[in-house]
């Protein structure tokens, strides 16, 4: 009985290990999907503080963008609770900063008007609330 249970435990541990490795490998592969999409201008930063997809995207890319946005939202929620502001306020402030400093020329970005634009050499005209 004990022997059987041990074997079952070993099998479960091995299974979990394989799944974990596969998951890590998948996450790494998917992460590169976003980097490529960013470089191609298919994915870009939005003024609302999240990544967005311009047009249609594969399920794998969509999944990776969603995963990043979920993690971002968790980080925003934590900071919002610490500072006593809304998650939206934190997200919008991060949006101001990403648009101001983290969008390279040739990459896509989206302002609150919902229109996707491509960054030129000139700085992005930020929403009024970003000023200051």
């Amino acid at each position, binding site marked *: 009985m004990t022997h059987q249970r041990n074997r079952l435990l070993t099998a479960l541990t091995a299974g979990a290990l394989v799944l974990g490795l596969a998951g890590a490998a998948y996450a790494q592969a998917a*992460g590169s999907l*976003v*980097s490529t999409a*960013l470089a191609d201008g298919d994915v870009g930063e939005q003024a609302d503080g999240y990544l967005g997809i311009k047009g249609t995207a594969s399920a794998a890319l969509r999944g990776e963008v969603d995963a*990043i946005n979920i*993690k*971002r939202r968790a*980080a*925003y929620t934590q*900071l919002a609770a610490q*500072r006593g*502001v809304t998650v*939206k*306020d*934190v997200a*919008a*402030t*991060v949006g*101001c*900063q*990403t648009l101001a400093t*983290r969008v*390279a020329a040739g990459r896509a970005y989206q302002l*609150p008007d919902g229109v996707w634009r491509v960054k030129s050499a000139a700085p992005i005209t930020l*929403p*009024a*609330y*970003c*000023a*200051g």
Partner: protein
Amino acid sequence: MHMLLTEARSRATSGAMKRFATLMMAASVAACGGCVQVQAPDKPIEINLNVNIKQEVVLSLKKDADALITDNPELFPK
């Protein structure tokens, strides 16, 4: 003779009052031409609150936001 005179006078008075009432009605109808007429819109009034973030809040959060970005590089791929 006396009675008749009183009757005639009262008739004259009521005629004047009627004329006055008619005049007042006409005046009020004319006045309504200058009334401000308020009409309820058939569409609901929409107020866009999407960009309702206070500049001060953004300003106070800027340093925190920068730290959040640099502390979580995996969430902000370049």
